[in-house]
């Protein structure tokens, strides 16, 4: 219940934060929303000697569309994502995801940057960002980097971020016409991590066939997973009932679930199929102009 002692550092600008990370290396941890880190510290599963609180750094928060992208500041709180009209209207898959993260109180503090950087395969945003083919913007000692999402999640709790690198922004390509997405999460109770989650983002061509498909899977692997076979099977095809069922079936084969307190591996794999099917239907509805 009580964390170990640490020194508390509050940089007011990014270069300062980066320098602090360089100075203290593995002994330091970034404090953003703190709702992954502080619980670990209270259980003494994490005991950083230095906590670098980046909440005072200006310019890391915000939701806006610019140059063909949705730009999400890393420090944007989940609650603000949830209440954003822009996101609800234009990126409903993101709205779906943000409103099922933990509970409303946690969402007042938790940040999207933290959700991605923590790289817990049980977190909800990673699969959604895979489906959206997002790009992660970082800043480090060598300046700015743009990391495609497929390269970002390396392993459980491990990302492509360098030791002194900070995630500053997420770029989500603005949706093409006839695009739609959905995120469905199966949970043991509201507020829990996912038993499984499936994120689907579809774009349709003028003739109604699938022009692009992104499918991300939550909590069925060491990281969030892309169901690339399921995606490939959809491209150029008419998204009829049979096709969607096939895509869902393929996505289930690509999952790597393990048995734990959230259910047997076999059940989880089946749920990827079931939820995947439902998410595909929903995404398609939205792509066709429904809400």
């Amino acid at each position, binding site marked *: *219940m*009580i964390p*170990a*002692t640490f020194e508390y550092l509050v940089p007011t600008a990014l270069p300062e934060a980066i320098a602090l990370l360089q100075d203290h290396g593995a002994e330091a941890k970034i404090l953003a929303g703190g709702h992954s880190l502080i619980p670990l510290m209270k259980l*003494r599963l994490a005991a950083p000697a230095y906590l670098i609180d980046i909440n005072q750094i200006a310019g890391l928060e915000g939701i806006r569309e610019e140059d063909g992208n949705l730009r999400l500041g890393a420090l944007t709180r989940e609650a603000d994502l949830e209440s954003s009209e822009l996101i609800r209207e234009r990126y409903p898959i993101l709205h779906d995801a943000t409103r099922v993260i933990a*509970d409303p109180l946690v969402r007042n503090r938790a940040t999207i940057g933290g959700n991605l950087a923590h790289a817990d395969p049980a977190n909800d945003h990673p699969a959604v960002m895979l489906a959206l083919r997002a790009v992660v913007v970082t800043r480090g000692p060598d300046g700015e980097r743009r990391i495609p999402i497929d390269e970002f999640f390396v392993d459980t709790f491990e990302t492509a971020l360098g030791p002194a690198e900070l995630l500053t922004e997420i770029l989500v390509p603005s949706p093409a016409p006839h695009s739609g997405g959905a995120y469905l999460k*199966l949970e*043991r*109770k*509201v*507020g*829990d991590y996912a*038993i499984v989650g499936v994120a689907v983002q579809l774009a349709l061509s003028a003739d109604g066939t699938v022009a692009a498909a992104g499918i991300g899977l939550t909590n069925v692997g060491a990281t969030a997973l892309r169901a690339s076979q399921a995606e490939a099977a959809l491209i150029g095809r008419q998204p009829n009932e049979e096709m969607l069922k096939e895509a869902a079936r393929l996505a289930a084969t690509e999952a790597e679930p393990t048995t734990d*307190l959230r*259910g*047997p591996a076999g*059940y989880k794999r*089946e*749920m990827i199929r*079931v*939820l995947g*099917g*439902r998410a595909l239907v929903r995404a398609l509805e939205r792509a066709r102009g429904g809400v």
Partner: protein
Amino acid sequence: MTTVAPALGHGGVKRKEDPRFLQGKGNYIDDHRLPGMVYLDIVRSPYAHARVTHINAEAALALPGVLAVITGKDLEAAGLAWIPTLMSDKQMVLPVDTVKFQGQEVVAVVAEDRYTAADAVPLIEVGYEPLTPVMTPEKALAPGAPLVRPDRDQKDNRIFHWEVGQREETERALQGSDVVVTEEIYIPRIMTSAIETNGCVADWQSATGKLTIYMTTQAPHAIRTVFALVTGLPEHLIRIVSPDLGGGFGGKVPVYPGYVLAAVASLKLGRPVKWIEDRSDNLVSASFARDYRMTAELGATNEGRITALRIKTIADHGYSDAAANPSKFPAGMFHICTGSYDLKTAFVEVDGVYTNKPPGGIAYRCSFRVTEAVHAIECLAERMAHQLGMDPAAFRQKNFIQPEQFPYRSALGWEYDSGNYPAALTKAMEMIGYDDLRREQAEKRARGELMGIGISFFTEIVGAGPSKTFDILGLKMFDSCEIRVHPTGKVLARLGTKSQGQGHETTYAQIISEELGFPIADISIEEGDTDTAPYGLGTYASRSTPTSGAATAVAARRLREKAKLIAGHLLEVSPDDLVWDRDRFHVQGVPERFKTIQDISFAAYTNFPPTMEPGFEMTSYYDPPNLTFPFGAYICVVDIDRGTGQVKVRRFVAVDDCGNRINETIVEGQIQGGLTMGLAPSFYESMIYDEDGNCLTSTFMDYLLPTAMETPNWETGATITPSPHHPFGAKGVGESATVGAPPAMVNAVVDALWHLGVRQIDIPITPWKVHAILQEAGVAE
């Protein structure tokens, strides 16, 4: 149906205790701060079974702010390493050589502040030599199993064998029955998880020789007596004060090692010592509930008349029998399991077994194992009905004990006081629209949709209990009320029970107000301080209304008798010429000649009859003549998602009969809360241990309490069948809903799946459990 006009008609008076809670000025244990107070924290065992080879506290003691370390060897010297349990077994405060469950207290450390104590814990080096843990009763009973308790005389892991009923007759009756249904039912271990954990502040004052312990306890007097017997400290110099409690549910009854450790530390340091559990401490070590494996059999004729019941139970008690049962009943009131049915032949046996888990057993609103008993009989009854092709409601109506049969002597020896079962079931069926639901179900089933309707009709048994049968560690289970009226007509009443949220400050005041006419605002109720409250056995097992509630009425009536004599004196008439009317005595036929209870109160101190003792105070210690038997009809409707296996409780109707109700709103609140604690184990909660003894559900991340999103809108109704032996016909209700709800939910799920060949399902009903059934039946989406 008969509704006797209740003796009390206050309805939903707003609670008197609420203002301080609404303002954040409650007085819970962690709010207590005494000058010079220090903090105690505990090193806990990572192993379920291990020898403790060495303890090195040097580094901890060197940490600035750390004041003391206590080990099992220190306690052994004071004769406190082991203490008796409430069932006359013994349990460790700290181990001298062996630990017996993961999370067990191993070393205590005391420091100036909470944070330093927490820092000291990982600095204490403990060496362990792991031993093989025994994690299930099957393993415990297997030949050659490691002994959990080598200190006991017997060389196996059995604790007790208890049986009641007619063994041979039941065997014959079952053999001779047209139909027998058998179920192997496992009710897993669960934890009360009141939002406030356990804790205490122990304050030894050497100048007075007095030990005061502020303690989260539902039974302060019993704890005081136990402390006196165990420590040798004189009982008049021990004071237990139970403050505002953030829930109890039975989990705040046992003597926890932390209480003893804090007392020992205070004695050693001469300073007040606070100990407050973390949630994970609580989940790994506090008193568990359930953990019953039952083989249950019900026999019936082809026409649907129940012939006999037999239940054999293996009870996993953890490493010590510390269940807070009345001493003659190691399985509590489990033999209420003949339930609401008129059956003449039954046999029950329960075998308690040791395992390497924490002790406990009587908790989580179980009403002394009544949850387990009702679960068995109500699952059996429903299954028998389906098996015979009878509607489950009709089956019950056919077998109910009828109103004219009360008082009813059950096959296993209880005398049920009163009941009108048919009326309650009929009411529940009307409220839920039972016939329409069956029609809907048939239509849905034809379309392949899974909808279930489940019934549970329970008879509860509360108000422990009459002195001839009930005691805890020898202490008889009466309870008490002392009413003192001040000259200006204001009342202070103290009782031996202890509220943990049940609204005692309001309901006891309502009883006094009803009996004596004082406005509720003029009555103060106190509980929990053993220096001032009359002796009682505390609040658990829904006993407060049947015992202290009765004592309150009795004491108030004794005061009214004295009031009559004083009134006669004041009015200069014979008391026989006086009539009581709500809050005053008036001369028979002359209502304008009266004295109010306030007039009389003042006169008790200033103008009383010459032969009378002055003052205006009465105490009653109430030894109930019998238990009381609340009952209820619960009906649950579920819909099952064929894709995910998730079960949604669409509707739940609960008709409860707890006799006369003092406060309708409070009763309804108890039921709503109780139903939610019936939903929780049915679908969400269970304690899971792996075979190495690791507890896998030691936080709220995995021990899942339902939120407002999981909890349906409970629909409640009432019938009122007063208890004939209770002073105002009331019965007690706190646990009824937790007792009655799970079988209704289980039965609803089984009903939804019956046509697929499903006959029973163990709780918790997880989505993957249901999904596996759907897959096997070929109907998964």
